[in-house]
């Protein structure tokens, strides 16, 4: 059944809040061993921050994704840009049933 778009929009803050709570719990759980064991050894200042590597993952992924998207606007082209080098027949290294 198709979801009502208005209803979906209304649910959005609740869903985001739910995810946020889940994330907080997860990071707390993951950070707990470090907090208990005092095992963290910071070579630089920032890697001693609370849940630093989780924050790194959270920031690095969107940053790289949007950087790739931005660069994609400049460098992504149609597949025939360099001319069509593909053969009509399938290469011999593929499954015989396919050929």
């Amino acid at each position, binding site marked *: 059944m198709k979801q009502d778009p208005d209803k979906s929009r209304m649910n959005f803050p609740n869903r985001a809040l739910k995810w946020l709570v889940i994330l907080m719990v997860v990071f707390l759980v993951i950070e707990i061993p470090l907090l208990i064991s005092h*095992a963290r050894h910071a*070579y630089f200042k920032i890697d001693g921050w609370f849940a630093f590597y989780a924050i790194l993952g*959270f920031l*690095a992924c969107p940053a*790289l994704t949007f*950087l790739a998207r931005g660069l994609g606007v400049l460098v992504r082209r149609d597949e025939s840009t360099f001319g069509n080098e593909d053969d009509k027949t399938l290469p*011999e290294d593929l499954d015989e049933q*396919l050929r």
Partner: protein
Amino acid sequence: MNNFADFPPALILLLGALLVPFLKPSWRSVYVILLPLATLFYVLQLKTGTGSQFNLFTFTEEPLEFLRVDKLSKAFGIIFSLNAVAAFIYAFYYKKSTQHVAALFYIGGAIGTVFAGDLLTMYVFWESMAVSSTFVILARNTEQAKGAAFRYIMIHLVGGLLLLAGVILTIARQDGSIAFNGFDFETANHAGTWLILIGILVNCGAPPLSSWLPDSYPAASVTGGLILSAYTTKTAVYTLLRGYPGWEPLIWIGCAMAVYGVIYALMESDIRRILAYAIINQVGFMVCAAGVGTHDAISGATAAAFCHILYKSLLWMTTGVVLYRLGKSNLCDLGGLHRTMPVTTVFFIIGCLSMALPGTCGFTSKNIIIHAIEHEHLFWPWLLLEISAVGIFLAVAIRLPYFLFFGKDKGLTPQDAPSAMLGGMALLGFFCLFFGFAPGTLYDLLPHEIDYHPYSIAKVTIVLQWILATGITFIFLKKWLTPKPGISLDFDWFYRKGAVQFYRAADTTLNGANALAKRTFIDGFVKWTCNFFESGASRSTAWLMTPIWMLQGHNAEEIDSLQQSIFKRSKRGAFQIGITAFCAVILLGLLSIIFLLE
């Protein structure tokens, strides 16, 4: 001095390859597995500190060293042989000898390079790799493969020439010594070592000399791509670890490779091109470690290269199964394959997780490099490599399996992998987990003893934190990571498109100048000169005679006829001899009278 107590292990593959075309196809598939297996056993029994030398050239002061066994060369020799065994088990279905022979020469060249003890031997094996790997690409026999192979060999010939120039200059600077040991950044910083370094970086896939890798590897066959993915870049890493430890520029080159590889991997939609860019990313870590140059960094890079060969080959194998069964490699055309290819999916996930997850070889190896960089307090390289590690996990370990095996079902129902392919994948999958659970076995192979314990609470927690964050972030970023059809322009644009434009510009200007010169000189001046000497005399005669004929009373038609007669006679050279002789006698008589009067 001839001391062949131990022969180079490359000989097993190089000489063994010569027999391949003469064997029956069924025997051939078994034979090509036995050759690297024999090489593996031979390498394992080689004792460190041994070697074999051979006086081949009289112009070198030292003998050529075909075999130098130390822990660094032995570690690379083991993984090269082991990977070759798995690759040929996987390629059991492929019966044609061309690719097998080329692949055996290529792997033999790689093993020869890592056991070479001097610059000349290293160079010869290095170049043999370039030539034989071109035939591995060509073996697919498609137009795309032919084009990629041509570009590949051109780039590698340039790299090889730079390497040769560097080798010659370095030998000259070393007073004729061909020794290949670590070049010191302070004392051996000259044109020769820099040329060698550039030649090596071409094979590493360092930008802007990197685009040959994503161009050629995906153009090779299912097994060709698998074999190529392991040797060229890792041999280059070996030579960096051997020759350039502590060369600081390599730290930044490595970081640039890591970031560049991850951004392109996130953009790409072709599964084999994604893996090709992931190779550049991972090799960046090793190049960076070579630049750091400490014992931990060198051992870390060796461990990373060792394990990278294992899990990257496993990923090439699994994606190769998809290509083999469906003939497709673009994520836009694929999806939902886990339903019909469950075993391949499992092996793919093992390969993906082996990049970082605790319990796999990536966790126990790559983190040594990070650890070494932390110890040297290199903040920016550390941060860039950490970001790259997160990014490549997102691109290869999450995005790729999601859109390939899960995600939207495209209605494809291929069979799972054939049993031989499964055998190859199982072997590598086993070692991916084995070196993850028993890292001590791996650490015993490393060139320097390291004080590194991967399974500490801090190290496991740190990796789990960013892996989890990456996984959760993917849910939100899925929309922006959805593959789109098309290709990404890379540095190859300059020689693929740019060179075409250059050719056209040269065609227009140079051929235009040529055409102008032809019109002016060939068609104009030369033609006029020929005409002048051909008919100038007869036209002058006709022009001089016309008033005389008019005075004699000839009409216009007769004059025209007389003129035509002169032209014809001139062309034939058939003036009447009597008249000519008479004129000559008159002329001579006149000259005689003038002479006598004087």
